[in-house]
């Protein structure tokens, strides 16, 4: 039914360029070019390539309608959840939904839901220079959740999920987004200024980490049950297993 399930030649050339050549060229330019903003340029190129290569993989697999709609539903729950708690800044369930997606449907689905949720929720709340960093950071949180918990024989315990959620949001998400803020702000790239930026973001990051732990504690049981049921009943994301 699907016309070509293999790699399309145009796409594979493009993914090689994206994955290898563009970051390498950016780094070379950064090493030899004399520009005081070269770190921002190189990191933006690498981020864009990382995010695009996941989208390309997704595109290449020609996802069936059911997978596509399920991913859209999960992203929408994350975004609508953020909108529901908009009066409490940084108290948002996005990371929790992204982690649960990674656990139940695999790392690639986790990355996609994370990146798309960040992008779309910024359409509602306003795009900013931090959008690519947020997309990548949420994607990374979901991807690693998939890598850590996907192949566990039993379902991960709630405690592990909460610990992973807290740490990943505080260290990974906070680390990436604060790094982005540092790069954009033009402060000198020293450990001191990184720590200054992180310190100024600590209240937000702590709230975000606590919110993620809370939502994981409350949501992980029912959400995982529902997603497992969807998988059993409708055979969702089965090709994910084949490709891994």
């Amino acid at each position, binding site marked *: 039914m699907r*016309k070509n399930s293999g790699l399309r030649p145009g796409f594979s050339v493009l993914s090689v360029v994206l994955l290898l050549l563009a970051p390498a060229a950016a780094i070379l330019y950064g090493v030899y070019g004399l520009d005081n903003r070269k770190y921002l340029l190189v990191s933006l190129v690498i981020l864009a390539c990382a995010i695009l290569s996941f989208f390309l993989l997704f595109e290449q697999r020609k996802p069936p309608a059911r997978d596509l709609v399920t991913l859209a539903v999960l992203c929408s729950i994350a975004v609508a959840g953020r909108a529901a708690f908009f009066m409490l800044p940084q108290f948002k369930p996005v990371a929790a939904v992204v982690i649960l997606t990674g656990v139940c449907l695999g790392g690639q689905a986790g990355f996609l839901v994370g990146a798309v949720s960040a992008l779309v929720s910024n359409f509602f709340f306003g795009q900013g220079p931090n959008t690519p960093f947020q997309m990548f950071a949420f994607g990374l949180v979901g991807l690693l959740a998939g890598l850590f918990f996907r192949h566990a024989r039993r379902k991960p315990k709630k405690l592990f999920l909460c610990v992973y959620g807290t740490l990943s949001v505080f260290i990974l998400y906070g680390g990436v987004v604060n790094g982005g803020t540092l790069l954009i702000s033009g402060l000198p790239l020293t450990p001191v200024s990184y720590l200054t930026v992180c310190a100024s973001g600590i209240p937000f990051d702590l709230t975000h980490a606590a919110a993620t732990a809370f939502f994981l504690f409350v949501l992980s049981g029912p959400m995982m049950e529902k997603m497992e049921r969807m998988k059993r009943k409708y055979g969702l994301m089965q090709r994910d297993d084949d490709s891994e």
Partner: protein
Amino acid sequence: MKTNDFAKLHPVILFTYFTAVILFSMFFMHPVFLAISFFCGFLWAVSLAPRETLRFTLKCILPLAVLMTVINPMINHAGLTVLLYVNDRPITLEACAYGAASAAMFSSVLLWFSCSNRIMTAEKFISLFGRAAPSFSLLLSMVMRFVPRFKAQTRAIAEAQDGLGRGVDSGSLPTRAKNGMKILSILTTWALENGVITADSMRARGYGLPGRGRFQIYRFDSRDKWMLTILSALIFAVLFGFIKGENSIRYFPFLSLPPFSPFSFFLYICYFLLCSYPMLFNAVCEVKYHGGF
């Protein structure tokens, strides 16, 4: 400005424009380029939404800019011209200048993003990827649709639960929290099941079959062609100047600007035309289509 003709241009042009201007604003730390970008960005943001922009500038941009101007010389001690010593740490002229420049850079990037958020709406962004990444753009447009739909459904569920005496407004705090989670759980089940029905309906109508076209709302007409040509010429001129090193400036160890020449004057004009492009375009359209101001 009565009508916003710029927003009616093809999304490809709008996306190219905003990407170029925002990236240029981020990377050009030359004071003239910073001033041009900030001035045009501010003017356009004000003309798009006067009250919001003024509030945003005073409440958000100004404190950030002051903070960045102050923090930079405190953290960064590079530079040769020492102004004074604080705690045996030198405060240098170069670091102060760099702090002011990065504050201007950051402010103009934020202003340009505020313009872009008003012009580059989600459906235009989605239509950009229709051909290159159909699954991704379908995913994006479904999410944009589902979010308001889920909010409406949450209200419906909450009302039904309230009618059963399980509302979020009644009972003790733990009961309320439990009821809230119950609503969320019902919503998730409904959304996932409903999603599968949507997917089956899509498949039944032939989603993913070869030879299917896509929905296209934007047409690339001859005006768009001309505008894209002008825009590309301006962008290439500015990029050429960047390669020639005209837009760069060295802040450390001491300030050094590229020498001023007729070519740099030409570049300033190009960059000014690029940054004020939407306003100029709107003004021209005002005269041409709407009979003057």
